[in-house]
């Protein structure tokens, strides 16, 4: 008895599985080119469609195989015959009465629904189906009769859908070429609405069955992955669009239609989120220096690396002209007629701190310039100046002098 009770549901299950398998085989009949092979060209789908159209027009009597061939005579007869055999093999077309020598056939509706579905997916990338799926799931989980199992199943299905899309997109955005990415760009469109609807479903499930938080967490993760994948793919497309100026993200007709039909408000709304500056490049001095340095050196004549001055006399002619930046003149002015002057005097004579600093910089530059006959020497000791004074507060004693030998 106990055995019977366990076997009985098993048999029910088997019957249910057989029914599912039958519909499954019927639905996929339209995809099979020959038995065991999938369809490869859209023309074969058209043949299938024509066959189903013939059956639809035939009424309740059914059709013989010859009548079907006649109705589909715009296609090659061999092709029609092969498709008919395939549909028969999958059970999409079956005899009206199951007996030998029966000539009339009837068609199942599932393959045609599948055909419609395929056409729509082919046309719109399956996204509208996804929208409808989301509406259906939302309806399911919102229904008052829905149980926690329904909610779990819904969340599980949505998680799988979004994981699949996200994986496909992120693989493409990493590896695929831009043309392929652009072909699949419809996966990117309208994704905000998709995500929002999925989040609605998620919210309903989580509110009604808080115990399903683990499934909801997976769904959230799947949605986040989808969002990231969209961002990555869109960034790649936009980056390419920016360099080629190809606005191929949308078909050209859409751009033209938008430009023609949109009002001022809508056209202006495109720029709403943009802060734009006068389209002028910024020149970073560092970049300018690099550009200038990389410019004057053709590959043929390499410049020798810079040598410390005083190594030898060579290269002196190439050096910048003496006093090319006014250092010598400034040093001469600081010294005046005298041969040597105290640094402290010069700095105290400056009207303010900034000019004192400049004087110091000029002296140091003159000291380090090998072409100029000036020397700056420092002594021990530190003078503290009047704290209210304009110049530097502390001064090291030092001498700035013109070299006797003129070098």
């Amino acid at each position, binding site marked *: 008895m106990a055995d019977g009770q366990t076997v009985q549901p098993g048999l029910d299950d088997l019957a249910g599985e057989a029914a599912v398998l039958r519909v499954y085989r019927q639905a996929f009949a339209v995809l099979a080119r020959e038995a065991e092979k999938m369809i490869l060209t859209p023309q074969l789908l058209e043949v299938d469609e024509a066959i189903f159209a013939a059956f639809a027009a035939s009424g309740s009597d059914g059709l013989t195989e010859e009548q079907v061939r006649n109705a589909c005579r715009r296609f090659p007869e061999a092709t029609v015959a092969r498709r008919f055999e395939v549909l028969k093999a999958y059970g999409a077309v079956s005899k009206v009465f199951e007996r030998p020598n029966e000539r009339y056939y009837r068609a199942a509706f599932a393959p045609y629904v599948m055909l419609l579905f395929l056409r729509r997916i082919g046309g719109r990338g399956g996204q509208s189906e996804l929208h409808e799926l989301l509406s259906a799931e939302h309806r399911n989980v919102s229904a008052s009769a829905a149980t926690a199992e329904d909610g779990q199943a819904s969340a599980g299905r949505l998680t799988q859908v979004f994981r699949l899309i996200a994986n496909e997109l992120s693989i493409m955005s990493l590896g695929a070429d831009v043309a392929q990415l652009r072909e699949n760009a419809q996966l990117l469109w309208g994704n905000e609405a998709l995500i929002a609807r999925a989040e609605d479903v998620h919210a309903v499930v989580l509110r009604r069955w808080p115990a399903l938080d683990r499934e909801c967490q997976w769904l959230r993760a799947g949605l986040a992955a989808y969002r990231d994948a969209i961002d990555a793919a869109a960034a790649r497309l936009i980056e390419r669009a920016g360099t080629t100026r190809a606005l191929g993200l949308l078909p050209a007709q859409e751009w033209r239609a938008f430009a023609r039909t949109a009002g001022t408000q809508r056209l202006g709304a495109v720029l709403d989120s943009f802060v734009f500056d006068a389209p002028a490049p*910024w*020149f970073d*001095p560092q970049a300018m220096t690099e550009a200038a340095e990389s410019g004057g050196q053709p590959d043929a004549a390499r410049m020798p690396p810079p040598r410390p001055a005083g190594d030898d006399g060579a290269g002196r002619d190439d050096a910048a002209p003496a006093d090319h930046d006014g250092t010598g003149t400034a040093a001469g002015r600081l010294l005046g007629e005298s041969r040597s002057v105290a640094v402290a005097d010069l700095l105290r004579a400056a009207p303010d701190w900034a000019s004192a600093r400049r004087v110091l910089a000029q002296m140091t530059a003159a000291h380090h310039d090998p072409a100029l006959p000036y020397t700056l020497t420092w002594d021990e000791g530190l003078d503290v100046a009047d704290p209210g004074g304009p110049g530097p507060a502390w001064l090291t004693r030092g001498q700035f002098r013109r070299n006797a030998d003129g070098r």
Partner: protein
Amino acid sequence: MTAGDTALAWARARSAGPLPVPAGTPAPAGMIKLTGPGGSWLVPQVPEAADARVLAEMGLPGPLLEQPNDTARMLAAVLRCCWEDPLTPVWPGVSAGSGPVLAVFGAVTGPRDEAAHRRAAVAALRRLDQAGWVRWDEPAGTVRLGPRVALWGSGDLTTLRQLWRSIQPPERAHAIPALPQDPDAAEAADPDAAEARPGDPLEPAQ
């Protein structure tokens, strides 16, 4: 100066770059007013944490600039010719003949085919002129620094001073044999032509 005027000036400057204004116009908030021999300019000055160099820090693409290296070299050449004394502020600078500028540009870019050199120079000057970095009076053949150079900060100017010193002055640049022998350059061989010509019509080419 009302809030509306300020907003209008900002909008204009954002869409068209530095604004030429009649003398005596007060500067709106956040903009600096530059006065030079070519007229007065209003230049928007945003904080350093909000201007174009932030784009570079964040790795975002800025406005597309064709031939960025040649254009930067041309700006360096103009800077060398128009900034007489690097200890003084870079604005307003002096006017320079296009001949010396071309010569310095040639020295910076290295030997090139003469036609290619001239083409690159003209293209770079036009780009810089359009962006407000340089004012190029094409008929008169003179070049000045544009109002945008006043936006370089003190740190930038330190780097630019080094750049200035590293570039040969126009007179020495002439000694380089790969000189373009165009009429402008021949004219510029005359030292007087290389001097600033204060009487030049310095129309801001906007």
